[in-house]
Structures are given as C-alpha cells and as structure tokens.
C-alpha cells in the first residue's frame, strides 16, 4: 500500500505555496531487471488538487517524472486554515489522497 504524502502549504501574499512529496516508484518502463527483463512502467498518471473541497488543479504525468515525485505550485486566495487535498492515481489504478491545512 502506498505510503502517505508529505504536504506543506504556506500562505503568504494572498496565496499559498504548496509543496508535495509523493511516495512512488515511478518505474520508467525503460529499465531492465538483473535477469535482463524489461520492468513494466508503473507511474502516477494523474494528480488532482482541491482547496476546501473545490478542485483547483489537475495534472497529467508520464513515467519521466522522478521517483518519489515532488510538485510545487501556488493556490491563489488560499489562507491559513484552508484545507488542501491532493489525490494521485497511477497507471495500475492505485490511488491515494492526503490532506493538509494551510499554515
């Protein structure tokens, strides 16, 4: 089962800067194992973010995003106490949602 994300969301100047670390292999599909067999691609395909339940960002990723992905973006108008919820979904259908409070 996927480990939790680490979300930091800090409000400043009328917006909140959100930094996220996700725990995921992000297997490229280009790598071979020790037996020479191609390791199938396994990666986060979709990332969705909402603020207080309202969707604010959606992104699509390929397998070239680094292992244990990092993402940084700014949500306009977000203030301390607001809830940022982030969901990822990978190409095997596994998904995970974590929430953080803007500080």
């Amino acid at each position, binding site marked *: 089962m996927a*480990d939790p994300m680490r979300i930091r969301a800090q409000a400043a100047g009328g917006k909140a800067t959100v930094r996220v670390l996700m725990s995921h*292999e992000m297997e490229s599909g280009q790598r071979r194992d020790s037996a020479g067999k191609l390791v199938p691609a396994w990666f986060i395909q979709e990332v969705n973010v909402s603020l207080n339940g309202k969707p604010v960002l959606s992104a699509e990723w390929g397998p070239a995003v680094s292992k244990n992905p990092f993402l940084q973006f700014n949500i306009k108008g977000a203030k301390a106490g607001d809830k940022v919820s982030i969901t990822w979904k990978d190409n095997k259908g596994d998904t995970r949602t974590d929430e953080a409070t803007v500080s």
Partner: protein
Amino acid sequence: MRIQFIGVMALAALGCGSALAQKTASQGIDEYRAMLQDGNPADLFEAKGEDLWKQKRGPKAASLEKCDLGKGPGVVKGAFVELPRFFADTQRVQDLESRIVTCMASLQGFNEAEINKTPFGRGEMANVTALATWISAESKGLRFNLPQAHVTEKTFYEVGKRLFFQRAGTHDFSCASCHGEEGKRIRLQDLPVLTKNPGDGVGFAAWPAYRVSNGQMWSMQLRLNDCYRQQRFPYPGFGSDATIALSTYLGVNAKGAVSAVPTIKR
C-alpha cells in the same frame, strides 16, 4: 541562494582563464544541489520512521518508545550525535542501526539475525532505515559529540583508524585514498576529508541521506557498505564490528560538526 551564486561567480572571475571552464561546471553543480534542497524525499522516510517508532509491532506487539539509544529509555533527541557508543546491556559498541535492531529484538520480539541479513531496502531492513532517518532527524542542528570514556569506545576508535587506512582489494583502495586529502573530487563529487572534522553537515554529519541516483534512503551502514563495494572489498556484514569501528572513527573525528541529517545527495 542568489547571494551564494554571485559569490561563486566572483570566485570564478578571480581565477585565471584555464580554471574558468571548470569553475563553471562546479558552479552549475552547486546550483543544481541548491535547487534540490527544498523538497527532500527523505521527509517521506522520516514520517514513516516516526510512525514505526510509535506503532505496536512484532511478535510482542510493542512499540519502540522504551528503546534506549544511549541517553535513557525513550530519549530520541540528541541520541544520534552520540553514536556509536558502548552499551552495557549488550556489552558492545553499537551504531544507531545496530541499536535499533537490538531494540526491535528485545522490545518487539523480532529476530535479530534475520533482520541483520535482510538486504537494504527490503522488509524489516527498510523499516530500520526509516527509523534511523527519523531518529537522526530529531538531532538535526546538534553537534556531534561521541563519548570516548569507555575503554571499548577508545579501542573501537583505534581499530576504526586502522580500517580507514587499510589498503586492500583489487584496486589497493583504502578509505583514505579518497578521503585523506583536502580539495579533491571524484568525477564532479567533492570528497570530504574524514581524518578530521570536515565541517557542518558534511561527511559523517550528512548521513542518512536521500540518494537521487536510485531514489533510495541511505543509512550510514549502507553508505559504508557501498564505499566498501566501490573499494572492491568483500561484503561487510550489517552491524559488523568493522563497520561500527569505522563509524566510531569517523564520528569522533567529526566532533563539533552540526548534523544536517537527513540530507539529499546525488
């Protein structure tokens, strides 16, 4: 970050023509490293480690909260910067990781020998690494100050020193081959001098670290293990006396250095 950048530029400008191209390369590397500082995936392992410390696990369904890391049962803050040290209950000098395994065995009922032979990154060994990441992070900003009062601790320092200078393997490498002289690098990676305090957050004060090259969390045991691999030495056992003696030597030499652990590395 910008100020640091300008500083490097000024330095480069002072250098003579031939050195200029090289300064630019290492300046580029510094810039790259600075960009990675914000958002260290080690945070993920740190969170997992804290969770593992508090969770009731193992055959005895107990947490590790009574584990004695050298400063008394349950004291985590400050423990890392005083390890390896001598433990009366095991009559051994132990580093952080071997001590974690001792606690997992005595408090939680795990099989010590089984964990010791589990490869890095797998099963309970991955948990040991996560625990080591959290425990060491709790000492972030503190200065290394390994105890040397017990004669076994002093003995391990002396053995570690001999191991540090031991040339062997197919390439005649010792630890000192790479870490004995000031201002050297391997490819573009700077090599800290480990016969003395190499500075805050450098060398012994930089591990555990997240390695971006393979996306793994590297503990000190794995750091030493991979140094020995690259030295073309045979395989050092996890928590073996050689690795702990070497750690003792490095840790005592690092006295006064501020721990920046967990860091992020190539």
